C-alpha cells in the first residue's frame, strides 16, 4: 500500500491480547485516516450509550497517509475516542514525532480497548508489542514519564503519555507527546487514565511508500514554495509564534476578557508574541516534517515563575491572560509549563479558572471554597497556584479539573460557563467576529476554533476577506472551512499549512502519494462526510438544535469597551441558513438525500 501501511493494531488491555488486522482499504479511501478513519471506527464499533470512562470505550491513535512523508508540515496524528467531557466523538490533533513513528512501526491506527488491571504502558517496536508494568512510572509528570519509559525501551522511542491529571480522570486532561505537544481537548487524557494506560512508546524501522515518487516530489516542492512565500507560513509564525494574535484580536475588540465579560484588554500587549519574543524566546521549534516552525522554546527567569519548556500558544496566552484579567507573561508561561507537565488542556483550564474568578468576585464562592486563595481576576499568583492544584486534583483544583460547565452548575450558575456543548470556547469573541460564533455553536466537539477557523478570513486577510461584523455569507464560509478542515485533519497535514496551500494542493499530494485519484471536490466531499458522521453521533447522544447555541452573555450582553463596544452575536441570523446549506432540516438533522449523497446511513 502507498501512504497507508495496511495494518491496524488492536490491543485489548483487559485480556492482554494484541491482534494485527488489515486496514479496510475502502474505509481508508473514503475516510482518509486520522480523524475520519478514527471516527468511522468509533461509529461502527462503539455502542453510542457507552460510558466514556468505562472499559468499553475505545481509544484510537491514528496518523494519516501524509504522516511520515515530507509533505510539508504534515506529520500529525489524532487521538479519537468518545470524549468524557461531553460524549462527542473526541478527535484531538497533535504534532511532534509520535504519529510518524507509528507509521514507521507499520500502523495506520492503534485501537486500545478494555482496561488493564494495573498501571500499564505499551512498548511497540515494529511488529513486536509488549504490555508492560507501569507501577514505577504512574504518578510522574509527562517529561519524567517520557524519560523513564525511554530508559526501559529505546532512547529514541517516541512517547505519548498522560500526566497526573489524566490519571485522576480530569475531563479536561490531555495526552502529551515529546514532552511539549498535546492532543488537547475534550478530556482524551482521562480515557487513557481510565484504562490504566500511562504511556505508549513506539519505535519503527519501517517505511512509508509512495505510489508516484516523481509526481509526489513535484507536488511537495510546489506546496513548500507556496507556504514559504506566504508571509505567515513563510516567516511570521516562525518569528512570533501563534501568540502574535493577541494584539490583532484585541485591536479588533474581540479578545474575550475576564470570562467573556468584555472584548478588550488594555494591557494585552504584555502577553503577545512580540513580548514573548523579546523576553522569553530561546529559539523556534518545528514538528516532524514541518517547514513553518511555529513552536516556541521559552525560558522564564523570574524566580516566582522560573521554568523552561515550550509555548505559550495564543490560546494559552489568552486563557491564562486576558480571560483571567492577567497581563503577567511570566505567570502565563509558567501556567503553560505546568499544564504540559501535568497533562491538562490549557484552553479549558484557563477558561474554567476565569469562570471561578467570576464566581468568586460575585461572592458565590469564597476563600472557604478556594483553599484560602483570593481567586480574583488579575491575581496571577492565584491563577498559577490553581493550575497546579487542578493538575494534582487537590482541594479546589479537583473541582476546576472537571471543567467550567460542571463547576458553574454545581454552584447554581451554569450561565457563567463560557462553553458550547460543555467545551470551553477559545480566544475569539463571537460578538466581535460573527462567523466564529456560528462555528462555536455548530462545532461537533463543542467550543472549538480550529475545526472552522473563519478568523483567517474575517480578521487575518488570509487569501480573502469578509467583514467580521456582518452575518451575510458566514454560513457558507463556516461550512467550507469545516469540510476542508475535516478532510485535512484526516490526512495528517497541519492546519497551518493552509497559510500557503489549500484543498487543491492537498488533494494533488494525496493522489500522488496514495495512487488514489482525489479531486478537490472529492477531498471536500470526504470532509463533508466526516462532519456529518460526527453530527449523527451527536444526535444519538441526545444533542439537538437547542445545543447549537452560545452562552446568553454572547447573545444578549453587548461588549462593554473597545472597538467592538455594543456588539452582540447574531447567531439566529446565521444558523437557519447553515442548516439549509448543509442539507439538514430546520432541527439540524441531516436529510436522507444528504446522507445518501455522502454514503452514510
Amino acid at each position, binding site marked *: 500500500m502507498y501512504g497507508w501501511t495496511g495494518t491496524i493494531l488492536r490491543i485489548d488491555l483487559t485480556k492482554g491480547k494484541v491482534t494485527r488486522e488489515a486496514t479496510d482499504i475502502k474505509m481508508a479511501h473514503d475516510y482518509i485516516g486520522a480523524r475520519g478513519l478514527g471516527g468511522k471506527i468509533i461509529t461502527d464499533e462503539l455502542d453510542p450509550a457507552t460510558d466514556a470512562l468505562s472499559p468499553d470505550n475505545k481509544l484510537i491513535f491514528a496518523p494519516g497517509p501524509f504522516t511520515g512523508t515530507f509533505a510539508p508540515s504534515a506529520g500529525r496524528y489524532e487521538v479519537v475516542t468518545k470524549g468524557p467531557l461531553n460524549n462527542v466523538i473526541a478527535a484531538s490533533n497533535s504534532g511532534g514525532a509520535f504519529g510518524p513513528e507509528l507509521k514507521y512501526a507499520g500502523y495506520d491506527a492503534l485501537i486500545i480497548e478494555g482496561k488493564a488491571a494495573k498501571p500499564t504502558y505499551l512498548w511497540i517496536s515494529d511488529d513486536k508489542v509488549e504490555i508492560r508494568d507501569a507501577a514505577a512510572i504512574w504518578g510522574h509528570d509527562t517529561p519524567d514519564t517520557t524519560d523513564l519509559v525511554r530508559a526501559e525501551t529505546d532512547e529514541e522511542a517516541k512517547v505519548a503519555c498522560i500526566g497526573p491529571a489524566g490519571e485522576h480522570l480530569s475531563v479536561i486532561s490531555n495526552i502529551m507527546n515529546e514532552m511539549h505537544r498535546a492532543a488537547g481537548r475534550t478530556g482524551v487524557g482521562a480515557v487513557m487514565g481510565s484504562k490504566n494506560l500511562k504511556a505508549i512508546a513506539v519505535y519503527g524501522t519501517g517505511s512509508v511508500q509512495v505510489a508516484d515518487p516523481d509526481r509526489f516530489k513535484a507536488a511537495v516542492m510546489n506546496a513548500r514554495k507556496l507556504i514559504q512565500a506566504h*508571509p*505567515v507560513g513563510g516567516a*511570521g*509564525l516562525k*518569528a*512570533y*509564534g*501563534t*501568540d*502574535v*494574535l493577541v*494584539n*490583532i484580536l484585541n*485591536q*479588533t*475588540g474581540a479578545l474575550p476578557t475576564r470570562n467573556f465579560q468584555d472584548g478588550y484588554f488594555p494591557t494585552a*500587549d504584555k502577553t*503577545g*508574541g*512580540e513580548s514573548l519574543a523579546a523576553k522569553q524566546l530561546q529559539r523556534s521549534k518545528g514538528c516532524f516534517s514541518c517547514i513553518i516552525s*511555529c513552536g516556541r522554546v521559552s525560558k522564564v527567569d523570574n524566580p516566582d515563575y522560573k521554568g523552561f519548556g515550550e509555548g505559550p*500558544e*495564543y*490560546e494559552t496566552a489568552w486563557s491564562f491572560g486576558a480571560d483571567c484579567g492577567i497581563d503577567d507573561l511570566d505567570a502565563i508561561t509558567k501556567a503553560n509549563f505546568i499544564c504540559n507537565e501535568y497533562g491538562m488542556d490549557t484552553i479549558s483550564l484557563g477558561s474554567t479558572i476565569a469562570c471561578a474568578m467570576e464566581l468568586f468576585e460575585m461572592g458565590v464562592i469564597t476563600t472557604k471554597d478556594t483553599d484560602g486563595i483570593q481567586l480574583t481576576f488579575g491575581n496571577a499568583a492565584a491563577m498559577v497556584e490553581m493550575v497546579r492544584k487542578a493538575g494534582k486534583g487537590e482541594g479546589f483544583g479537583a473541582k476546576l479539573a472537571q471543567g467550567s460547565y460542571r463547576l458553574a452548575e454545581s454552584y447554581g450558575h451554569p450561565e457563567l460557563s463560557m462553553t458550547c456543548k460543555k467545551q470551553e470556547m477559545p480566544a475569539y469573541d463571537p460578538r*466581535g467576529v460573527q462567523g466564529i460564533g456560528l462555528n462555536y455553536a455548530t462545532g461537533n466537539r463543542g467550543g472549538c*476554533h*480550529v475545526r472552522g*477557523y473563519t478568523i*483567517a478570513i474575517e480578521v*487575518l*486577510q*488570509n487569501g480573502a*476577506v469578509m*467583514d467580521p*461584523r456582518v452575518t451575510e455569507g458566514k454560513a457558507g464560509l463556516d461550512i467550507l472551512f469545516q469540510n476542508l478542515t475535516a478532510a485535512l485533519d484526516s490526512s495528517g497535514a497541519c*492546519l*497551518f499549512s493552509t*497559510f500557503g496551500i489549500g484543498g487543491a494542493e492537498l488533494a494533488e499530494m494525496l493522489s500522488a502519494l496514495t495512487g488514489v485519484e482525489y479531486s478537490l471536490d472529492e477531498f471536500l466531499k470526504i470532509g463533508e462526510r466526516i462532519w456529518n458522521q460526527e453530527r449523527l453521533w451527536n444526535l444519538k447522544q441526545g444533542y439537538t438544535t437547542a445545543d447549537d447555541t452560545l452562552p446568553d452573555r454572547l447573545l444578549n450582553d453587548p461588549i462593554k469597551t*473597545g*472597538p*467592538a463596544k455594543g456588539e452582540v452575536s447574531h447567531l439566529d441570523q446565521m444558523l437557519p441558513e447553515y442548516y439549509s446549506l448543509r442539507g439538514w432540516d430546520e432541527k439540524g438533522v441531516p436529510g436522507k438525500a444528504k446522507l445518501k449523497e455522502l454514503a452514510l446511513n
Partner: protein
Amino acid sequence: MIIKYFATIRTYTGESDRRVDDPPPTLGPLLEALAARYGRPFRRAVFTGDELNPEIIILVNGRNVLYSGRLAAPLAADDEISIFPMVAGG
C-alpha cells in the same frame, strides 16, 4: 490620533506607537508621511506601487480599512490606527 505598530512593523519603525496631532483627512497621505519618516522597509510593507499592500492589515478604531475605502478611508483626529503585517495562529 494614536498609531500603534505590531510584529515586524515595529522593527521598521523602531517604536510601538506614535501620537499624531492634526492628521490628514484620509489614510493615503498619512501612510505617505509615515513612510517618509520611517523609510523604505515601512514603505514596502504598506504600499504596493500606489495601492495599499494586500499583505498589510490596517484597522481604524478596530475596523479594517478595506471596508471604509482603503487609502481613501476617512480619518478623524481622535482615531486609533493599528498596523499589522499578515499574522496568524490558532
